[in-house]
């Protein structure tokens, strides 16, 4: 398990600085790039390196709020369905005569409402784990999308709408700039505001957080609503890039997003992680896909690589931080406790 200390006197020093998870990610990132540039002479070209980001950044908007959700010790697997539902509602309302800016606003409102519903159910029925609640809303949201659009595709957006997914300002794709802005905002929110500290505190020990006066319910609702909002942003960029939308769009995004967050060193038992890790993970997986695509390595090899990377990273994290970890297992994380018996042998 990753370190779970939130105390003020976190040890500082060269050793702890260099033993951070992010350095390993940077190393992986460099290795990926070196391998890629050796594989294909077309890879190391600044223009295409920057330009290729719009192929994978739409999903990245979900990684940011998912980091909050996972630091909170929850999980949200309904995000991909929220993307589909809000995209479908945007497209149908536009084709029913709503002006495009209003349709885009409606997209964000719908997605935020989806997140809000998740959060409210979780808060009203505390006995239910987030996994189960979002599993059922995942089916419901995508179900609504199917009811609205059946098996049709909907598109015919105005030309300027494609700017979101394909446009660029100077040499930089617009989506990269938008993502950078969101990443900075979410980083500040998580690490520099009291809201972020509350999220960490709740992820470490929800009961203790409540007794120390944190309005835990509103934090949970806020985090899930934020996740919904970002799902709407993803829907905008994804729809813009694809030019049209279908009810089965973004299928499987939820697991890919969770994989990126975990690869970024955020522990699924909550209370630990930094925003930089998941952001690095986005670019590692993105460039891995891009580079291997250049040399015609099939997507299925990529699946194996990403899966192994995920398992190995957690394995290393366990071995590296698991030893000498003396803090007793917190009562809210039964799953960690499950992994922590001192010497039960297989």
């Amino acid at each position, binding site marked *: 398990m990753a370190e779970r200390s939130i105390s003020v006197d976190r040890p500082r020093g060269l050793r702890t600085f260099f033993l951070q998870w992010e350095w390993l990610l940077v190393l992986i990132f460099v290795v990926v790039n070196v391998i890629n540039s050796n594989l294909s002479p077309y890879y190391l070209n600044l223009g295409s390196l920057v330009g290729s980001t719009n192929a994978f950044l739409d999903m990245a908007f979900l990684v940011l709020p998912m980091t909050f959700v996972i630091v909170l010790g929850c999980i949200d697997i309904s995000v991909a369905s929220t993307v589909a539902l809000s995209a479908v509602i945007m497209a149908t309302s536009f084709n029913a005569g709503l002006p495009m800016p209003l349709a885009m606003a409606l997209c964000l409102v719908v997605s935020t409402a989806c997140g809000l519903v998740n959060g409210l159910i979780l808060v009203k029925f505390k006995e239910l784990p987030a996994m189960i609640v979002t599993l059922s809303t995942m089916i419901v949201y995508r179900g609504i999308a199917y009811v609205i659009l059946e098996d049709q595709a909907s598109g015919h957006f105005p030309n300027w709408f494609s700017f979101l997914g394909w446009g660029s300002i100077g040499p930089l794709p617009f989506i990269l700039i938008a993502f950078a802005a969101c990443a900075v905002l979410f980083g500040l929110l998580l690490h520099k505001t009291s809201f972020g500290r509350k999220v960490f505190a709740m992820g470490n020990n929800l009961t203790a957080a409540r007794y120390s006066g944190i309005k835990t319910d509103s934090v949970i609702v806020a985090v899930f609503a934020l996740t919904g909002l970002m799902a709407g942003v993803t829907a905008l960029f994804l729809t813009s890039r694809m030019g049209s939308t279908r009810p089965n769009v973004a299928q499987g995004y939820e697991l890919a997003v969770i994989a990126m967050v975990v690869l970024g060193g955020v522990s699924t038992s909550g209370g630990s992680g930094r925003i930089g890790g998941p952001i690095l993970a986005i670019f590692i997986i993105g460039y891995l896909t891009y580079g291997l695509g250049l040399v015609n390595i099939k997507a299925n090899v990529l699946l194996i690589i990403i899966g192994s990377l995920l398992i190995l990273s957690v394995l290393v994290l366990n071995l590296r931080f698991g030893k000498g970890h003396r803090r007793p297992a917190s009562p809210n994380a039964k799953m960690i406790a*499950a992994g922590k018996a001192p010497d039960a042998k297989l």
Partner: protein
Amino acid sequence: MSADNKPGSAKGRAIRPGEGFRELGLLMFIVLLCIGFQARNSSFLTLANIQDLLANTAILGILAVGMLVVIITAGIDLSIGATIALAGMTSALTVAALPGISPLLSLVEGMAVGLAVGTVVGLLVARFNILPIIATLGMMNIVRGVTYIESKGAWVSSYQMSDGFLNISRGTILGANNLVVMAVAIFIAAWYFLSHTRTGRRLYAVGSNPEAADVSGIPRRRLVWLAYAIMGVLSGLAGVLWVSKFASAQGDTAVGYEMSVIAACVLGGASITGGSGKISGLILGTILLGMLNNALPLINVSPFWQQLIQGAVILAAIIMNVAVKRNNQRSALRKRAI
């Protein structure tokens, strides 16, 4: 979140009548649904249709048994969709290459593939302490990738399969479809295993309190490993049955099916936090989900409504479950006060 549901959802005796009530409620809902379906379409409650429905639900049921075992240990397995595809593809490729192979051998082959995957997952979870959701998420990708590589992206279609292989899912024993017979046998075996053997009871102990299980000398890691191995074998079996039933093996077979299986377990009353869940509830949950999957077209409900109805039923079921439990606790408290 889990901090709250521990003390609240007491798994002790006080909750027993509630669980019975839950299953009764589920049964009543199924009966009502049957009456409604029958009223809309009089061919719903015919023997042929019921047999059809059961045969279509059998694979879900077999998988749900494995998932229940994993969920009882407070785990989860997201890799089963991929395992189904790998086992199905492996057996289909073998049949395509050696048409004379006995169907029984195909089943064994699929189960062996599943066991191999399940063993690796169990090793990761039990020995290397990787959280089940992460380990199985990673394995899902790996196994799916291996399936695509093994098949070279191609399909195995029905003309490449021998009659014996296709008859695994078409044949009947005593008038019932093979799939149904297998599912019933697995339900009975799992019921006996979970309720009446020491290992089965220990699985519940591991799931409801791992530290206590360790302290009382239960080989926790070995049991967790066993749970994933069982899940693997059953998904391997389901893979062969799937390919035989749909007469085609593809790389993307059963993508996302793990969510349906988890939904069947949750509908059946298994708690994702571990330590609870019964076969009787699981059977009802599976049948309900099977009815929603298969019977809606019969009453002229557009297939596009299917997912929404299914999701709404699951959401309603889990929320009702909580409401019933709360009510029970309140009445238990009231009894104590007097």
